[in-house]
């Protein structure tokens, strides 16, 4: 780990944004990624380490006017304990249940998972399918400002996001899915959790008169970023989830993913999994 010249622990969003404005800051929340990555040399710490854990404005889960706002500091454990998350945005709840271990779920934050921007990040795939937005705070002219970025545009590469160095992720906003929306999260692995996803899938739709409507599909670990699968959605939209439709969707998915081979799996196997598990997930969704 390279030396830390200054450690800051602001207590308000305003103070945090002010520190960020001066630059050269690594933001620390739960620590579950920063610490091991810095130790392994995969993350070069900036001279200033800013621990945002005491910023009260970054906590809380609340719904207002059909939008769920989840503070960036919300831990996986807090998400799992939230009836609102479980009942209304179950896709995210399922992903949290597959997230690491209890010890890590108690520390890891949603904001941290989003900013870490791993192509395999567990919560990112359902967030994409839920059409979530990142709420970014900064003080460009000495005044606290917020901007919203749809997550689909937020992830720009492995570990890279549209967040500027002077910005802090304040919250994730999720528009409540329409009535009747059913979703299924699939993370590949023999363990329930404590695993990096080989591939993951978040899929959801409404079922109307036997056909799928408002289909949303997102994939993890099959491209440089977690991805919304628009062509796959198009292959499913307005169709009954029968074998032919599922096959067509699988073909569409295969055409739009770009998996790589690494120590966890080959690109070939990732493709096979996306095909097979998309079909399985969508046939579940079709029955829900």
């Amino acid at each position, binding site marked *: 780990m390279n030396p830390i010249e200054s450690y800051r622990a602001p207590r308000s969003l305003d103070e945090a944004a002010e520190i960020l404005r001066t630059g050269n800051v690594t933001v620390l929340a739960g620590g579950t990624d920063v610490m091991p990555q810095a130790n392994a040399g995969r993350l070069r710490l900036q001279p200033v380490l800013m621990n945002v854990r005491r910023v009260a404005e970054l906590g809380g889960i609340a719904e207002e006017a059909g939008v769920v706002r989840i503070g960036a500091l919300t831990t996986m454990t807090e998400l799992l304990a939230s009836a609102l998350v479980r009942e209304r945005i179950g896709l995210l709840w399922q992903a949290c249940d597959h997230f690491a271990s209890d*010890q890590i779920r108690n520390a890891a934050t949603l904001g941290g998972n989003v900013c870490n921007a791993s192509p395999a990040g567990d919560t990112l795939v359902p967030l994409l399918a839920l059409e979530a937005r990142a709420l970014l705070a900064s003080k460009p002219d000495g005044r606290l400002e917020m901007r919203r970025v749809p997550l689909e545009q937020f992830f720009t590469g492995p570990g890279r996001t549209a967040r500027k160095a002077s910005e802090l992720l304040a919250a994730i906003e999720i528009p409540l899915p329409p009535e009747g929306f059913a979703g299924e999260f699939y993370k590949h692995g023999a363990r329930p959790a404590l695993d990096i996803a080989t591939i993951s899938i978040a899929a959801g739709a409404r079922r109307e008169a036997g056909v799928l409507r408002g289909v949303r599909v997102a994939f993890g670990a099959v491209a440089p970023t977690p991805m919304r699968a628009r062509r796959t959605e198009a292959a499913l939209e307005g169709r009954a989830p029968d074998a032919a439709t599922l096959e067509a969707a699988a073909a569409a998915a295969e055409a739009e993913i770009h998996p790589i081979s690494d120590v966890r799996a080959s690109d070939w196997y990732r493709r096979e999994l996306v095909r097979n598990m998309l079909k399985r997930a969508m046939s579940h969704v079709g029955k829900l």
Partner: protein
Amino acid sequence: MSANCEIEFTLNGVRRRLTVPAQMSTLEMLRERLGLRGTKYACGEGECGACTILVDGATQNSCLMFAADCDGRDLVTVEGVAASGLGERLRDAFVANGAVQCGFCTPGLMVQASHLIEQHPGADEATIRRGIEGNLCRCTGYRKIIDAIHEAAKAKAHE
């Protein structure tokens, strides 16, 4: 030169004030600065649970936590858990059920189990298995650990 941080926190019920380097982990602080060696290093990456401690009543891997972040918080290590009523019950259950072999993972499991039981008194087998999924054990095959926690959880539920 690395920054130092003044921190103040509660450790096993005792107030502590300490100056720590900004990059020090809580694990290192506990073991090397405070001499509490029941908390074990086994991976340093949050993958094994041997360094599990309680922070404000919830378990965390102390290897992933900056010592500076302990400021204002309430920490309990295996030494603190062992001194509690639930800790004694867990210790007895671990011993009686043969849940200890080489013992290196055991302190972390004791802490995790105490948290699990506090959260889910009377936890069933499936809950216990999931509850300790972040604790690796190479000796026992987990069966007797699960049994020990189950026994302690049942006793706790009947309190």
